């Protein structure tokens, strides 16, 4: 057989016709497009739909790279985060970084900080029509304490709990003073006791939905095969009316695919927990003309951690030299493409409560060399690397996770330029966690998350206090952490927080490398976006205020 041009052309044309036929067969029909999922709340829904949507169903679509891996409401990390919309936590963060009520209206705390009373809102109803009660809150917290590994601290510290139906409150009594319960309770979704009490092991319970919720929406379905989580309007919601009948969260395992889908108009906004829309894709998205952006200072940041257990790292002068050797502007520009800023030595970014402006980090390699020389670190053998006080070349190991190679190489270059040799250790996540939590490293380049910045005594102390996951043993530092942990008085908190930032700035146990912004795109057709440092744009206010322009 000879492959003449006409024969090749004919075969190609036939193949195209064949493939086109298959494609037409595969296209979903109109009837397939509408989901036929029936839910227990369907009757109530029908009623609501009749009232709210005479026209086509209004759907808000959110694209996210946060992949839900299991249909377990309590067990899956990201499903738990998204479920804040349907199963309110007791508390939430406000736009100005304060902890305010969500399911709770307000709270009281005893003088010894052991007894916390939360007054529950009396206008909340579960999506099956049952009223939300303080018993639900008590049940949920005891449930988490007993069954959820990351909630075991509740079981460890909770002495007793009681409810009062007269003032719709629930009281938790702890076996030690606890000043940050309001913050801790921003993460635990409250469950309907009448549904969950029959489930022996909630961690093992998974369902494709619906899950009974008490927010403006409840979870109608979660389907790992479509990679989609669907919220439907709670027919018993008495609060402000929402503009959308349905909220669809579409997750994409690849960030690139999520960005393409957003650009194509498959979603109205993009949400990644504790992160920004990829900076490199912002310009491309801007060019479509369809999107605006919420741009806010992030509570998360990048830093260089320095364990202080051995010389020369334990020497403040040496750490000063390290701080002056870093070209902050270059690193920030490279990593954030300008959506960041050179940090202050006080570590804490401006978006956080009790932020104190401290001295700006500056790049001055000449000064770094001078400081090293004055402190006795000199290059006596002329090989370009300074020697420590024992006469050996200084070589430090810099531990990083995959993804930070470029930053590590630049840091290596900066430090070598002032005479400090660096060996980069690129380790996997498991090794990283293991070594970081036990402080078995010399230097680490890493990032903080907003929640991480708030944990322990806040202001990043959870990362650095040796009694948690850190390496700072200095009583001056741990004492400040304890003072913060022992008070709920805002003036004392302010003064201690300021002192803590001064400590970071003066002692440099950690060098902030850059602060960054969280940029969240949204379709111009919608207005009413709100933002807080913990949840980004995924806040209750956003869902209540969002409307079509």
């Amino acid at each position, binding site marked *: *057989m000879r*492959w003449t041009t006409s024969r*090749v052309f004919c075969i190609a044309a036939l193949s195209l016709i064949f493939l086109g036929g*298959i*494609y037409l*067969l*595969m*296209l*979903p*029909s109109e009837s*397939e*497009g509408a*989901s*036929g999922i029936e839910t227990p709340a369907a009757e109530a829904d029908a009623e609501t739909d009749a009232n709210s949507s005479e026209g086509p169903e209004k759907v808000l679509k959110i694209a996210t790279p946060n*992949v839900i*891996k*299991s249909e*377990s409401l309590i*067990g*899956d*990390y990201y499903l738990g985060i998204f479920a804040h919309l349907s199963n309110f936590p007791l508390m939430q963060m406000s736009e100005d970084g304060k902890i305010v009520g969500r399911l709770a209206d307000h709270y009281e705390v005893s003088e010894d900080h052991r007894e916390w009373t939360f007054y529950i809102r009396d206008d909340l109803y579960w999506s099956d029509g049952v009223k939300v009660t303080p018993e639900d809150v008590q049940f949920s917290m005891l449930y988490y304490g007993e069954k959820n*590994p*990351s909630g*075991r*601290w509740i079981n*460890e510290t909770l002495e007793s709990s009681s409810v009062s139906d007269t003032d719709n409150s629930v009281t938790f009594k702890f076996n030690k003073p606890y000043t940050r319960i309001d913050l801790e309770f921003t993460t635990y979704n409250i469950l309907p006791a009448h549904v969950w009490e029959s489930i022996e092991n909630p*961690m*093992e*319970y*998974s369902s494709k939905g619906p899950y009974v919720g008490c927010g403006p929406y409840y979870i109608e379905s979660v389907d*790992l*095969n*479509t*990679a*989609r989580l669907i919220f439907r309007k709670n027919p018993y919601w008495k609060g402000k009316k929402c503009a959308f009948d349905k909220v669809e969260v*579409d997750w*994409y*395992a*690849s960030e*690139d*695919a999520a960005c*393409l*889908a957003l*650009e*194509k108009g*498959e979603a109205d906004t993009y949400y990644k927990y504790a992160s920004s829309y990829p900076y490199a894709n912002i310009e491309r998205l801007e060019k479509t003309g369809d999107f605006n952006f919420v741009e806010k200072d992030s509570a998360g940041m990048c830093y260089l951690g320095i364990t202080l257990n051995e010389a020369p790292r334990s020497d403040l002068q040496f750490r000063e030299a390290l701080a002056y050797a870093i070209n902050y502007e270059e690193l920030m520009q490279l990593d954030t493409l300008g959506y960041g800023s050179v940090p202050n030595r006080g570590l804490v970014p401006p978006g956080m409560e009790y932020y104190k402006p401290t001295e700006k980090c500056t790049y001055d390699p000449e000064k770094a060399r001078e400081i090293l020389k004055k402190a006795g670190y000199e290059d006596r053998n002329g090989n370009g690397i300074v020697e420590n006080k024992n006469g050996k070349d200084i070589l430090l190991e810099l531990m990083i996770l995959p993804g930070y190679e470029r930053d590590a190489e630049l840091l290596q270059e900066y430090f070598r330029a002032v005479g400090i040799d660096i060996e980069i250790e690129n380790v*996997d*996540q*498991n*090794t990283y*966690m*293991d070594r970081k939590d036990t402080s078995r490293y010399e230097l680490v380049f890493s990032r903080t*998350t907003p*929640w*991480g910045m708030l*944990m*322990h005594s806040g202001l990043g102390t*959870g990362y650095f206090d040796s009694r*948690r*996951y850190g390496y700072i043993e200095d009583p001056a530092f741990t004492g400040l952490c304890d003072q913060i942990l022992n008070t709920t008085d805002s003036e004392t908190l302010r003064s201690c927080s300021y002192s803590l930032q001064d400590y970071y700035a003066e002692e440099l146990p950690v060098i902030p490398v850059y602060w960054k912004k969280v940029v969240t795109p949204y379709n111009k057709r919608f207005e009413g976006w709100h933002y807080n440092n913990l949840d980004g744009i995924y806040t209750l206010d956003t869902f209540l205020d969002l409307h079509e322009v």
Partner: protein
Amino acid sequence: MSEMVKKTLRYAASFFLIVTLNFAFPRLMPGDPVKNLIGEDVYVSEAVMEELRAEMGLNRPLYEQFTAYIGDLLRFDLGYSYHLHSPVAEVLRERIGWTLLFVGVSVLMGAVLGTLLGAYAGWKPETKVNRLVCCGFIALSCTPPYFLALLCLDIFAFELGLFPFKGFYDVPTPGSVMYHMFLPVTVMALFSASRNFLIMRGSVIQEKGQLYALYARAKGLYNISILFRHVIKNASLPIITLLALDFGFLFSGALFTEIVFSLNGMGTLIYDAIIGKDYPVLQGSFLVIALAVLLANMLADLLYAVADPRVRRPT
């Protein structure tokens, strides 16, 4: 002892070794499964960590953990996933079905396409069309899978809007599944075909120079008959080996394709289990893969005998 019994014993020994390695390898990885479970930004006391370790059976000596693991296996119990909060057998059952569907179809399509085109290209390597096809397949086999998958997504889903971005379906109907599977299956079939094409082409080029091919031509057989009745049979032995190896790939899924198209398959399951140190999922997945590879090798042994009379001839 008959050959069959010897082979069975050999496979049984391999299976036991695999089971032992399945137990050992995840535990050799650095890190602590309990810390992974708790998460990076959550602090719990050492007492709670110990309590959790005890609940997961990780505080017991390794030999006790091993005997418990073997005991569970004998009861067909693959354990319970720390992270997915589900019995491993259930997780695997769901994932294997979908993975078989999209990777299995891709491997089969790749095998047919690659073998036939490779055979023809090897038979007439000098023609322009075959040279062009060969260049195309070399380029494909050199392209990183993630890049090719993303390129296809960009062109066919983003630019042309012909296919969806993610998932196995929108609604669980055959049409919707086919619509969603088209791009991932095409990408993987092309990869599979490129490997098979290159091996088959080389194999046919070698075989067509053998005396039996010359003899067939001397008998007056047409080219097409020589290729498809004689040469392809002998040239397909390396393809059978490759297909047997691909069975492992079949169950371990295609990580990159799954990530780009957000598919809930075996590849991401294993990847997440490695990251999260989810021992039961790792053990269960590797066991299934090992069983599949053993089975495929047994089938390959049988197919060798069918394809090559020298194999079934007693020595």
